[in-house]
């Protein structure tokens, strides 16, 4: 309400304020401005992520085969056929089992190796910093280069490792063509490539760890193992869970190693689900079927992410 005794300039100000939108109105305008600013980015995001995902989903409901596109594209007469067929496809079910085994082994090995190396490198010295950088090399190599390196290492005829072992009287047969060893061979190569990722996450967590709890534990007489078991490890828990989540999701993309080293073989022992989808799409041109496989994979990854995020979230809350 305007007061009678206020100056003319006050009145003008009050008039301007009255003419302005309310504070709420201003906030709404602000939100709209942000939204307008975001729209181009959202459109791009939708175009490059949501639209292909939607197309994948739609395609999975058709029998699309590129050899017979006229009959099969946009044919929704039996939308669940691919999914029903997948449930009876022994090769697909086998690929899920291979995928689970590979993911469990690689993620476990990467966490263990990453933790061990991070603990060894957790000190401030120029030498260790140089060593840390060297450990990062496998992670920054193109995956196809890693695959070729390991293919050479696993080919007895030309492998320096096989030659060395043979020379000392411990000859080892080809691992990648041995059905009992091939998946382990892939897991080892994958671990070599990706343990630096877990190492660097854990190392960062170690270096940001507060000194006080450890100091207190030492005063209480804790030895190195007790310090690690009861202080360091609980403090690292959220980082380890996060690293597990990242590596688990990434392990499902273990394609180049398999493509170069084993082609999914011998037989189907290293044929993971994405490789099977690749064969269906790129060798057989069954895009509808391959899309259905991929939809199941995407759903699995979402579920896994949701599950682990919940666990991580709980852990972070506890901390």
């Amino acid at each position, binding site marked *: 309400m305007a007061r009678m005794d206020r100056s003319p300039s006050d009145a003008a100000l009050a008039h301007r304020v009255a003419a302005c939108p309310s504070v709420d109105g201003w906030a709404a305008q602000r939100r709209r401005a942000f939204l307008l600013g975001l729209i181009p980015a959202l459109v791009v995001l939708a175009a490059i992520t949501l639209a292909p995902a939607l197309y994948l989903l739609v395609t999975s409901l058709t029998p699309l085969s590129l050899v017979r596109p006229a*009959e099969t594209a946009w044919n929704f007469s039996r939308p669940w056929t691919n999914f029903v067929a997948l449930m009876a496809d022994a090769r697909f079910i086998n690929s899920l089992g291979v995928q689970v085994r590979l993911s469990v082994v690689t993620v476990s090995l990467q966490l263990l190796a990453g933790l061990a190396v991070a603990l060894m490198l957790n000190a401030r010295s120029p030498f260790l910093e140089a060593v840390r950088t060297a450990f990062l090399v496998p992670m920054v190599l193109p995956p196809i280069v890693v695959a070729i390196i390991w293919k050479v290492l696993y080919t007895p005829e030309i492998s320096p490792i096989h030659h060395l072992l043979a020379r000392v009287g411990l000859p080892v047969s080809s691992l990648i063509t041995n059905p009992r060893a091939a998946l382990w061979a892939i897991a080892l190569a994958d671990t070599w490539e990706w343990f630096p990722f877990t190492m660097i996450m854990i190392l960062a967590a170690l270096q940001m760890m507060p000194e006080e709890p450890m100091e207190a534990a030492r005063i209480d007489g804790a030895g190195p193992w007790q310090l690690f078991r009861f202080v360091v490890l609980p403090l690292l828990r959220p980082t380890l869970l996060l690293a597990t989540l990242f590596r688990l999701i990434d392990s499902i993309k273990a394609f180049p190693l398999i493509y170069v080293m084993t082609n999914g073989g011998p037989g189907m022992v290293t044929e993971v689900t994405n490789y099977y989808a690749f064969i269906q799409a790129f060798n057989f041109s069954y895009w509808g*079927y391959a899309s259905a496989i991929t939809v199941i994979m995407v759903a699995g990854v979402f579920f896994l992410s949701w599950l682990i995020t919940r666990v991580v979230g709980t852990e972070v809350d506890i901390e």
Partner: protein
Amino acid sequence: MAQKSGKRPVTRRTFLKAGLAAVGAGATGVVAVPRRAPAQGGSAKPYAGTILNVSCWSAPYPKWLADFLPEFTERTGIKVNYETPSFPVYNQRIDLELSTKGSAYDVLNLTFIYTSRWIGAGWFTPLDEFLKDPNRTPPDWDPGDFLSGAIEPLKDKKGVIHGFPWIADSFMAAAGRYDLIQKAGLKMPDTFDDITRVLKAVHDKEGVKGFITENHYGWSWIPYLQGFGGNVFRNPPDDLMPVLNSPEAIEAAEYFANLLRTYAPDGALSYMYDQALNTCLQGRTNYITFNHAWLVQLGDPQKSKVASTVAYSLAPAGPKGRFPGVAAHGFGIPAGSKKKEAAWEFIKWAMSKEMFRRMLVEKGYGSVTRRSVIESPEFKKQMTLNGYDVADLYVKTIELAGKGYMKYRTVHVYPQVDKLIDKAIELVTSRQMSAKETMEWAQTNAIAELKRAGVNL
């Protein structure tokens, strides 16, 4: 003969002809608008500045062709983006590209195994229009000079040509260390029984493994399958019922897997064609049944450590006969290309008699598909390797394939079955299943794949 230089001399006769033609056109009131002249004709370069995208899988001919590309560009003004990925990568990438009828490529290889599928789906341009027009194809380019067996798979059902073959990939045998076989008092194997006998005698002698072949078993196992009297389909291309679980197929799988298990280098199941060749070039493995285009490199002293000890023979015969594979791959123009005229200029150049002759003389290329070059003394001379008349083996192999046993390979669903066979041989060789179980598995899966592809069985 294709011209070495890009310019044809203007003789008095051609000058007079051109003048008369111009007068005639003026008299009739018809002004002929010439089609864009072939690039090698005259000093003009009508396609100058055009960029062609060309892709072919990595084999000797396409790889060596890259060395000659600057000459093509100089002659025509056409620039070429050229790539030669590996065989599986090429096929996967191009199968997808062709299905979209995209215009990313202007010249592509027509892979033998995909010819029926790619041509049948209308993904390649019929070349008859180019061939009929003398302005586009001079008579001396001579399409009739190509081996009929090599060009046949590149035609559609009406007989229209969709590509010209740069290779008649023929399956034969070589022994890099034939001296070891001779020392054992034996000769080059001529039958499957001979193979076993020879390998028993020479395997691991002087550290040299006995046997190798490439891990594309949908190609390298089939001559053994047919040699035992089996086949992939019951009666291709009319009856595509798979017969992979026949007693003959089981016997062939067991025999072949035994060769790989017993006599091949450790890890042979992972050997693609380049590795299979290299182990022989280095003298680490002795006997190989493989493709002629690669095997001739064993006789090249600049590449091979076994050039002075190598021997060649026809692919061995089984109890039911000799069935060496022959596969033709050729250059064609994808339907989606927007530069078809320039693409045809490229094909004419790459598939000319002159280019084949130069490939033969300058690079030692042996899988020539032009009869005039094959019948030349140069071919005989170049293809006599360490005293062996490989030219004769090549021609005999192609003649054998004329019997029609390769029909299984150009049916549109073979790519699916091909991959199953790869897996089946791996399963038997690595002892994950018995040959019988494996071939039953292959049969069941082949039927399922064919039904999914819409084949009525």
